[in-house]
């Protein structure tokens, strides 16, 4: 029982510690550098930004 409690407390302290360490490690390794670059990942030279795809319905409509 007591042992378990100690383990619990230890875990409660350890988990955030590891988390903080991981964050530090990550930032040192440039994990967060230019993080928003990834926003462009769905696109490529064949389907670049600015080219809508899959517009197959109601093509006769005046709006396009």
């Amino acid at each position, binding site marked *: 029982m007591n042992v*378990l409690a100690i383990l619990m407390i230890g875990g409660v302290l350890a*988990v955030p510690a590891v*988390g903080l360490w*991981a*964050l530090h490690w990550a930032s040192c*390794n440039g*994990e967060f550098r230019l*993080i928003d670059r*990834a926003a462009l990942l769905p696109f490529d030279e064949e389907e670049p930004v600015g080219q809508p795809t899959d517009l197959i319905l109601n093509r006769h409509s005046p709006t396009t």
Partner: protein
Amino acid sequence: MRYGPLLFLGILFTLASSWVGLVLMPNRQLGSLVANSSTNATGAIVLYPQARSGEAQQGAEHYRSLGCIYCHSQQIRPDGFGSDIARGWGKRRTVARDYVYDKPVMLGTSRTGPDLTNIGERQSDYAWHYAHLYDPQITSKGSLMPPYPFLFQKRKMGQGGPSPDALKLAGEFSVGEGWEVVPKPAARQLVEYLRSLKTSFDLPEAPLPKAAEVTDAQPPAK
């Protein structure tokens, strides 16, 4: 984010937190709960809850197999929270200890039908349960509960008239002269299970309404 490790770590820790909190902790707090022993008025030791008789346990298996849980709950919410107690479904809220012998625990999440936590005390009549299972319309007109004819057997009546446990079917439900409907073992076991559902026992963590409260309100004298 370019590399995996951080992502993996985060994914791991987030779920680990609730796994500890909502799985391990409950198991540590309630996983070894046992029946409560108390002494009743006559000084005898009373154990509650008690493991079910064989028949009732088989009935529980039918209850599970037929999916009764999808319309009937087995939990009484505290007085003043919902109308569970005001409707007389139970005398007190149910607590963890009420379920220590249930496998699986069938609390239920729907009340298309009434709660059954205490049905064994509210309705212990075999005849009623048989009629109700055979066709709920007999006992409860307008009920949305399906009939369970496959739990009963229609057979020719013996020379000695209807057998003792034959259903008393009249009017639109009668099965014709010389025929009778009798419950199969499954029906009997199911009813035994329902009759075994009783929670009107005192528990330290959930006492029954006190006798004092019971006797203070006398009906008006003539």
